[in-house]
Structure formats: C-alpha cells, structure tokens
C-alpha cells in the first residue's frame, strides 16, 4: 500500500503542534495512526503533511483532580486498559479499551485519536458520551472545553476546528451508587463495534435515579438512548424491567447497515446489548 507523498513533522509540545498546523493547513495530526495510516495507504486520506504528537509528553497520562479524571489525549488504549486507578474510578474505560482491536492496536492507538477521528463504530466515543465527559481543545486562540454531547457532530466529524488539537479528556470519577458497563457486539473482521452500548447508572437502593446510555456502531455518531433512559428512571433495574424496557430501543430506520449486519439486526442488537450493559452496570453499582 502506497500513500501519496506527504511531509512529516514531529511536534515536541502542544504549542508547537498548533503552530505546525497553522503553517500546514492541509496537515493532519498523527496520534496512534491506526485509522489515519490505513486511510492514507488506501488514499482515502491524502494530507499534505503529518504532525506527529507521539513525542508530546504533556499529552500522555492519567491523573485525578478532585472528582474529575483527566486523561491525556495521547494516552494509549493499553495504558487505560491496565490502569488500576481507572479500574476503580472509571471502570467503563478499561473495559472498553480491552475490546478495541487487538493488542497491537491497543499498544499504538490513543483515546484522543479515537475521539478526534470519530469513527461511527469506535468504542470510546459512546463511553465518554455516557459518562458526560468534556474535552479540552487547544488552538491558536487558546484553550476551550467542549461537552462530549457537542463534540461529536457526525460520521468522522467533530467540534475540532482546523488548527486545533484535542489535549485532554475529563470524566467524572465514579460516585457511590454509580455503576457502569460497556457491552459490544464486535465485527468479526475489524472488531469494531457493530453495536456497542455504554451504560452509566446511578442507583439509590435498588432504584435507578439516573441512567445514561449511549450507543455506537449503528449510528453516524455516538447517540444517547434518551427514550430508554427516561423509561428506566425511578425503576428497579431487575430482569423483568430490563426485559420490558429494552424493546425497540431504536428504530432501524436511519441506522447503519451493511452485508455483515443490516439495520434491522443492529436495532435488535441494540436491545440486547442495552439490556446486557444495564444489567452489569446495575450489578456493579452495588459493589462499592
């Protein structure tokens, strides 16, 4: 596979990356490269230059600030998968990381790359959306934060403007009574989500106070299942309730479909995986 010719720049800092993007308007940021480089090899992407963020140390790492978890955009999936901290404070992220691609992909791919690329079948976008995360963006005009709900705009389209760099992802640390789970039906070849459902529930005794459920894989962007969320509020998340509520959660009309999984099948899988994710999220809410 042979990409068209392109320039290559390695940024040492976010500031330098922003400056390089300013100098090369047709450049693309290179994170883990596991989506961009295949696209370039197939000439689906033909950037004039790559600005490599791989050496920007400030973009990598996981830390907690009060009640918020801050994850550097260049943190590889593998670091999230094996983070003992996240296993306690935001277990949905390690769980989702563990089902991305294969170990080689997870060693290179980054959370920021996944979110900024906004592949409609990626795993992290639905999780960050369900968590109610925010994203920090740096540009020539300085920094800004965007709610996950506003960040994802369409297939491969986000709130990132030309010349901007996604630097950090903030998600709330798990509070008592909160349970979360990610359930995915993986494509047998790509292992991307045919349907993935991220569920974050806040339980009070056995009653659901709030459910945030987001899906990926079958919609052009990660999508909250608001109808389902509303139906669950104030209910126990027991087998009977879930069986009754996780029915026709989404309409097949407008869902993505292909020869591997039709829109009808994906709509059905959304029911199944919403139920499974909620079941596990509810179970985990009690394991404080």
């Amino acid at each position, binding site marked *: 596979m042979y990409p068209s*010719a392109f320039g290559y720049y390695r940024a040492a800092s976010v500031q330098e990356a922003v400056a390089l993007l300013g100098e090369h308007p047709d450049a693309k940021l290179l994170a883990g490269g596991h989506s961009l480089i295949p696209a370039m090899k197939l000439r689906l992407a033909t950037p004039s230059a790559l600005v490599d963020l791989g050496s920007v140390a400030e973009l990598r790492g996981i830390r907690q600030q009060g009640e918020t978890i801050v994850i550097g955009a260049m943190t590889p999936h593998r670091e999230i998968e094996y983070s003992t901290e996240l296993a306690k404070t935001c277990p949905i992220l390690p769980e989702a990381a563990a089902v991305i691609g294969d170990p080689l992909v997870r060693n290179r791919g980054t959370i920021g790359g996944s979110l900024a690329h906004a592949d409609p079948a990626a795993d992290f976008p639905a999780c960050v959306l369900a968590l109610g995360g925010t994203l920090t963006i740096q540009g020539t005009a300085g920094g800004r934060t965007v709610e996950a709900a506003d960040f994802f705009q369409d297939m491969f389209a986000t709130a990132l403007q030309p010349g901007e760099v996604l630097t950090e992802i903030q998600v709330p640390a798990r509070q008592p009574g909160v349970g979360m789970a990610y359930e995915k039906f993986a494509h047998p070849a*790509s292992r991307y989500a045919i349907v993935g459902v991220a569920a974050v529930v806040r339980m009070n005794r056995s009653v659901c106070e709030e459910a945030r459920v987001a899906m990926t894989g079958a919609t052009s962007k990660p999508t909250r299942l608001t109808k389902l969320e509303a139906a669950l509020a104030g209910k126990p998340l027991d087998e009977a309730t879930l069986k009754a509520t996780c029915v026709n959660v989404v309409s097949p009309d407008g869902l993505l479909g292909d*020869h591997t999984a*039709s829109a009808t099948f994906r709509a059905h899988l959304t029911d199944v995986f919403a139920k499974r994710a909620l079941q596990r999220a509810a179970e985990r809410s009690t394991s404080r």
Partner: protein
Amino acid sequence: MEQYFGKAVKRVEDPRFLTGSGQYTDDLSLPRMAHVAMVRTPFAHARIRRIDTAQALEHPGVVAVITGQALRDANIGSIPPGWLLPDIKTPPHYAIAVDRVRHAGEIVAAVIAESRAIAEDAALLVDVEYEMLPAVSLGSAALASGAPAVHDEAIENVCFRWSIGDQAAVDAEFDRAAKTVKLSLRNSRLAPNAIEPRASLAQYVRASDELTLWTTSQNPHIHRLILAAFVLGIPEHKLRVISPDVGGGFGSKIFQYPEEVIVLYAARKLNRPVKWTARRTESFVSDSHGRDHESEAELAADDEGHVLALRVKTIANLGAYLTLFGPVVPTYLYGTLMNGPYRFRAIHCAVTGVFTHTAPVDALRGAGRPEATYLLERMMDRMAQELGQDPAELRRKNFIQPDAFPYQTPVALVYDSGNYEPALDKALTTLDYKRAREAQAALRKEGRYLGIGFSTYLEACGLAPSSLVGSLGAQAGQWESALVRVMPTGKVEVFTGAHSHGQGHETAFAQIVADDLQIPMDDVVIVHGDTAKVPFGWGSYGSRSAAVGASALKMALNKIRDKAAGIAAHLLEAAPEDVEMTGGQLHVKGVPERGKSFSDIALQAHLAHNLPEGMEPGLEATHFYDPKNFVYPFGTHVAVVEVDPETGRVTLQRYVAVDDCGPLINPMIAEGQVHGGIAHGVGQALLEHALYDEQGQFVAGSFLEYAMPRADDLPLFEIDHTVTPSPHNPLGVKGIGETGTIASTAAVANAVIDALGPFGITHLDMPFTAENVWRAIQGGKKAVA
C-alpha cells in the same frame, strides 16, 4: 543411529522464518530494478473505449505504461487452462484486458516506474474510458435466460456440462428407497489470503537472451512450461523460474497469473529487472478464489438408514476466466468424492461450470473435496435427522468395512485401504459423546443451545497415475522427481520437484534421507523451487508432497543404498546381498566390527580408485515416481458449538479431530497442518465470505470486512490419529495438508444445525454469521425455553 521418521523434529526452516531472515520474492532487489503498479478496473463488466496513457507517461520517474494491445502486438499469448473436459469452452485469458473487462480487479494497464510509489501515483493518471455493461456474479443467475454474456463463445455462460455415475441406477434406487431427503446447499466463496501476497520479479539478460522469474509459485516447473511455451512463446530453456521462500499458497499460487506475464514482458522490453508485489487489496480481487457452488442434493436410504443412492446437481461458479485447474476442481476432484467412506449402490453427480463477472475460481485448500464432503456430510446428517437416528451411528452402519478393500466406488475411484470405525470410536471416546449429549439436553432446558456435529470425511489426494489423469483431461503428468546427490564427504543434497511453501519439506524430507543413509540430519540439505537446479517436477498441491514427492525420494534413496552396498561389498570382498547397514556402517551381515561408514563409501565412489568392475563413479540417483493410485486419508472430526439465541452468535467450544494419514513422518508438522486446516474450514463455516453483490462488486475487499479466523475464534483442538498405511507407496504415507479443511467445514455446519434443531431448522447456508443465524431463529419455530 538416531531414528528420525516418526519423530517431532523441530523444523529446520523455522529459525530463518522466526528471525525474519527468510528470503521471499519481495525481499529481493536487483540493480536498476523498476516497479510496477497495476491499473485495475473497478467495474465488473465494461467495454474499454479508450485508454489514454499520456499523462501517466509524463509523470516524473515513469518508465513505461503497458496496455493489453501492446501485449497483443508483441504476440504475447493467452494464459491457458491445464485441464480440458469434453466440449469445454476456453475463451482467451490475456494478461491485460484488450477491449472488455470481465471482473472487478482485472488489469487494464501496467505502469512501470523507478519506485512503486511513483508507479502508484502515475497509475491514477491513466485515463480509461469505459462503457458500462450489465454484469452477473451468481452462477445460477448467469445461467438464467437474458443474463449478460461473459464471453461471446460461451452460450448461456456455460463453460462445460459434466457428469459422473449411473443416472438410471440412481433413479432405480430412489424408486425403491424407503426414505429420501433433499437439500439445496450453497458452498460459499472464499478468498485464499496467504500471509505472503503474490509477488514476481523478472530479470532479462540480453547477452544470453535469458529471462529469470522469481515468483510466489507452488510449482515453478509448471510456471516455466506454461509461461515459456504457451504465453511468451520462447524456448523453455530460456526461462528460469525460482520460487524462493513462499509464505503460504493454499492453492492460490499454483496458477499462472497476468502479473507474471507483465513483469516478464516488461523486463525484456525495458532490459531492466521489474518487480511487482500485490497489495492486500489487490490480492482480494485478483488471487483465484475457491468454492462457490449452488447444489441440489437428494439422498436415498432404506428404512434402517442404509444409504442407497445420492443424486447431485451443482452449478459451479468459475469466475470470468479459466485458470489452470479451474475445470478439474468442481468435476474430477468433486464428483468422484461423493461416495465418502460409505457403501453406496449408485451415485450421479452433474456439474455445470459457469462463467460470471467475478475473479476466477480455482483450487483452494481441499479443492473440490471440501465441497463434496460438505454436501455429503450435510446429507448424512439430514438423513439421520429424518430417521431420528444418531448421526454418528448412522455413519457407522454405512462405513465400508476394512475387509472390502480395494473398494470400487460408483464414481470411478478405487479406494486402496481404509478402516473407518476406529477413527470414529477414538473421536467419540475423546469427546465423551454420551456425556456431551447429556450436557446438551440439560443445557437446552436452561435456554442454551449446544450442537454436536460430525464429519466422517474421506479424502483422495496425490492424484495418480499420470495415465489415468491424462485420460480424464489433464494436460500434465502427476508423477514426481527426486535427485539425490551425495558429495565426496558424504553430505547429501536432495533436489525435489515438490515445493514447500510452509509444509516443512526441508525437515520432513531430510528425516527420510537421514534414516535411509544412517547419517545425521545436519548432513542433508533439501533443495526445491528452482528450475535451474531441480529436475522437472510438478510441485506441491493436492496433498501430494509426502505421498508422491517423498515416495520419489525414497525410491532414489534405494538406488543410492544399492550402489553404496555394491561398493561396500567390493571393498569388504563380499557379495552385495551379504552387505547390510546398521549403526551407520555398511558391513557384512553378522560382522558389524568390520564395516565402512556411508561417508567412506561416498569418498570411494568419487575417488573411483577401487570400484567394482564396470561401475560408474559418483554417487547420485534420480527417480521419477508415478504412483499406482491416489492415497485416501480419512477420519472423524467432531465440532461442539453453542449458539446465542439472542444474537445468533456461534461459538466453537470444542473440536476433536482423528485423522488417518498413514505413518506420520513428523507428528509436529502433521499436527500443525491439522491445526491450520481446521482453522481454514472453520473460517468458511463461521466467518469468511468472498462476497460479490449482484452487480459484481466485491464487498469484502479488506481485512476490515473479510473475517479470517483468529486464535480467539478457536478452541484448543483435541487431535489424535489412527494409522492405516497406503499399500501402494514405499512409505505408506498419505496427505495431511488438506484433511482439516475438508473435514471441518461440514463438522461445524452440522453442529450449528444440530444446535438450531429446537427451532425447527433443518438447513442453513454458510457462513453462519450472527445475523444469518438470528434470522433463521426468528423464522423458525419458537423453542421451548
């Protein structure tokens, strides 16, 4: 002396493969080498109105742009098929399309440049004006009236109509049968996906007017013969074909491909080395595919379940062009296998070979035999289901008995040997069949759906003898060569016409030599894959290396041993028949203390100071071995699957394989072949699908879409063997490279259908993707949870 035959000797070739030191075609680089990018049509069927190469030619670094017309003007011929059937249509297959393209991915121009990157850039600048034509991708659709014609000379897109067996006898059996079952079955199309993509490098030496082609070939002599004599029209001795390390073939590297013709033509025309290596996306649309059958099958049995007759009608999709073995795979490698290990009174199998606007279809691991086994084993299960009999016991009662060999089947083959029940029993014991059925019944009450599926397959491989295959239409012999050359120091070079592209000949063949000459394995080197070194041979496909290639080696070794014994007898002043070889010494029987080592004899043979009267100096022997018959591996494979009724997802839980390939030369290598073969067959059943849409667009053209089986799709295989030697070859060995693929697809399919029994499902076509299974469950009766 150490005994090597039967030992799991570590593979001689692995250190270089595991350390990245292998030399594959793409690793080779020559001075002034130019690179090719192919311009491939995105359309399944179109008329080429005009090709404008001017812009590409102007691109800096471009050396040449070659079109189909240029090849025609240079009298470059069509690539011929290697097997002819009565009334077969063989439309020309030119390396580059001239006026019409007939499948997506067909080459319309080749751009040659200083680097591959430049060539790829310039390939985008070749301007081809097409007139779109309607296309057809499904075999049955191509036969329908009004279907678009692939070739004007093939009326209704029929390439051939072929049949085998006694139709009247079958009809009579059906008339008196107590029970008949009928199924429509589709055998899905597969892409071969060897880990090493195809590659070719051609070099021309003007001084001697000689061409050398390094290429990913399973059979370099066939490449030389066809490319020189039939395509380029040059003397065979002016082309040397070298097949260096090759990373898997599975059949796809048997055939002569357009790209090989293009690099050879370009190297001579430009007087520069020219290289092409397939991008994976090119592999998907240009490697010959496998399978793709639509069949109607009927099986008749008496009321106790003894099978009587089988009636099969198959439409075999051949793709747009006939490649080397395209005609034989769905005929003589398919219809003749319909008997399996069972006692049939009559079988009739009729096959229509059909052209479509898709990539050519040819041999793929198993080649016809997986298709036959899938059909037959599905029918056996369907009959068991119909009669309410246990599928294992139905098979058992139909087995040919061990005293019935040689056994003449109703479809031409004569089985040389077999003993089918011990393999079935071993598999049932390993599985603990009774307990597995109990567990299945218990779990069904919990709403879990397990299935157990059998495949008591039979394979015919090592096609032979040459006179027989010739009478059936082969344009080739099916013998094999071996040259054993002993050096003065007693080291041994073996030149085999067989070819290793993963099979481990450098190890297994050396084991045979070391045992026979009682020398260390380190003293033996196996050379293959170079027409300038190796005597003419037919290469490796159809599981022929051990049965035919190693048998040729064994026969050549006998000649070496005889001559060595003659020299030893002379030196020991004894009669040759009184000399024996033990402990690495040739000595007079009963006098082991006074002997000559093999290296002593080798030296004496070369010095020739004191040889028996009239004996030629040297120690070298060649043997061309033409077997008397095929060999017939067999066995029992059992798959246990679980179906998730909510999602339709199938999980393979257990896999038991008991194979009989005769004596195992190297059990580790045999086990590796079984593992790979099972994975390949499971891939077809559960995951893989080389799918074209109705317009002839290939919709699974990358590993994002085409699902190859991976380690986590598979359980740990439980493998065992029985040993029934072939009576007619000197080693008693049979093939093992394809058994796994031949057996496993049917075993998994039967397991899935067994799991779906509670939903009233009696058949479902592959692949058993989640959606296919889920839809079947929705359409079936509701199970009682």
